[in-house]
């Protein structure tokens, strides 16, 4: 009972993100208006995940490019009345690359000029880009919105990557502009590079499809990565700042922290020896309600017990939940206090007053993907 009917494209979306996930990988997706607060928060998250040895040498470049790219959106994003077209940001660190991809609405009239500029930049060597940046700086002229196209040149120069871009015409006057660049973390050799699978976010057709999935499922935030305490706290901190403070959002945050820590405590990895916990969390917003969906691997041997527990909680009324909540709260026997409090799901059910929707989707004979969704309104 209460299993979710997650749309197939949602599950494909999770599968795609989990494919080949390795420790230290990170994916963060934000869909919405890019305000200066959002920019600061995303930079904070990126900073936190730049402490690892492999990424340190290029961290200042990532920081610059990310800052520049986000600022570009906040300056250039357009809004059309009555058509909600949010900007999107994808940050993805995997397969030896740090990929930064953005999407925002622009006036169709700018498309031609922008494309010309991108083709020009893509045809230049790093030396030529340096030269061009110097030239623009000297002969600085502001464009209508305060940019000088210097941003694009600098981003291309510092990433050393091909700028990948695409357009999706929304109306006669507006088009959605996708833009992606990547930084080589692993300093992969050319030959290996050709053999490595590319990050999907470098494929415009994939991006368009992916963007559709986000829209169809009303997803506005995705985090996928290693669910260890530091990442959870950073993410939680961002969410605290990003989601405006209302009674509803406080409830959302209370529920989120339980879900995040649940993955940390009970999630599994596809291999017994891997001690890190890959997980994913998405926040959907539909009118006045939030939905939180999490996905993590779990051993098949745990499923039956978990299912029983979830069905049991789902069968209870709120007063009954309160009763077992109190019992679990006061249960101070040694095996329950250390890690497993037995309170997490009960607490979520109580706070939301709704059923937990779940699904187990087999990965192989040892593991499954465990999805759980809760509704906060």
């Amino acid at each position, binding site marked *: 009972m209460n299993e979710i009917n997650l749309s197939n494209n949602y599950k494909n979306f999770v599968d795609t993100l989990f494919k080949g996930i390795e420790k230290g990988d990170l994916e963060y997706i934000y869909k919405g208006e890019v305000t200066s607060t959002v920019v600061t928060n995303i930079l904070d998250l990126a900073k936190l995940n730049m402490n690892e040895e492999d990424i340190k040498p290029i961290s200042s470049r990532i920081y610059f490019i990310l800052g520049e790219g986000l600022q570009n959106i906040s300056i250039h994003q357009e809004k059309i009345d009555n058509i909600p077209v949010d900007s999107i940001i994808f940050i993805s660190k995997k397969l030896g690359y740090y990929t930064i991809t953005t999407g925002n609405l622009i006036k169709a009239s700018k498309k031609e000029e922008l494309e010309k500029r991108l083709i020009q930049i893509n045809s230049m060597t790093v030396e030529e880009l340096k030269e061009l940046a110097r030239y623009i700086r000297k002969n600085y002229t502001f464009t209508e919105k305060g940019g000088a196209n210097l941003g694009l040149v600098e981003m291309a120069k510092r990433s050393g990557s091909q700028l990948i871009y695409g357009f999706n015409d929304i109306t006669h006057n507006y088009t959605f502009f996708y833009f992606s660049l990547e930084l080589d973390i692993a300093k992969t050799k050319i030959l290996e590079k050709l053999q490595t699978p590319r990050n999907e976010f470098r494929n415009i057709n994939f991006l368009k499809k992916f963007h559709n999935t986000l829209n169809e499922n009303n997803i506005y935030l995705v985090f996928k990565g290693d669910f260890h*305490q530091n990442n959870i*706290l950073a993410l*939680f*901190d961002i969410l605290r700042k990003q989601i405006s*403070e*209302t*009674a509803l959002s*406080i*409830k959302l*945050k*209370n529920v989120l*922290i*339980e879900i995040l*820590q649940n993955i*940390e405590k009970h999630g599994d990895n596809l291999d017994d020896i891997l001690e890190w916990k890959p997980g994913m969390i998405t926040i959907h917003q539909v009118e006045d309600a939030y939905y939180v969906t999490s996905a993590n691997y779990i051993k098949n041997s745990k499923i039956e017990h978990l299912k029983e527990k979830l069905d049991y909680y789902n069968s209870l009324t709120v007063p009954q939940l*309160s009763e077992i909540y*109190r019992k679990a*709260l*006061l249960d*101070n026997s040694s095996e329950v*206090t*250390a*890690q497993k*409090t037995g*309170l*997490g799901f009960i*607490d979520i059910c109580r*706070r939301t007053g709704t059923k937990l929707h779940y699904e187990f989707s087999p990965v192989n004979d040892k593991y499954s993907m465990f999805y759980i969704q809760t509704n906060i309104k």
Partner: protein
Amino acid sequence: MRVLEVNATQDTPKVILDKERNYFEIKGLSLPEDAVGFYKPILAWLEEYSKAPNPETNVIFQLEYFNTASSKQIIQILLLLERLNEKSKVKILWHYRDIDEDMKDLGEEYSEIIKVPFEMVEYK
């Protein structure tokens, strides 16, 4: 008796337990991985204090968030304060933000479980 003072971290609250000044406070976020470990010295301090408490003990709880692991420890503190209430006049000052219904509900619920006067204090 020595003062127990713990500074807030990203996932643990600020704690002041001061017998001399008769000031007792737990304030901030409580989301540690090891809640048992974090609250152990606090419980130990209160246990010690209970041997020779002040005539009145007002304890301020001003928690912005706490995870379920912390709630089990907080209830242990409250139970300890319930026992202490036989020796010292205990009052719990449960602070919650005006828009935080969950924190208010929890305070009310705990006040039903623990037989100690609770004062609900709303703040902005």
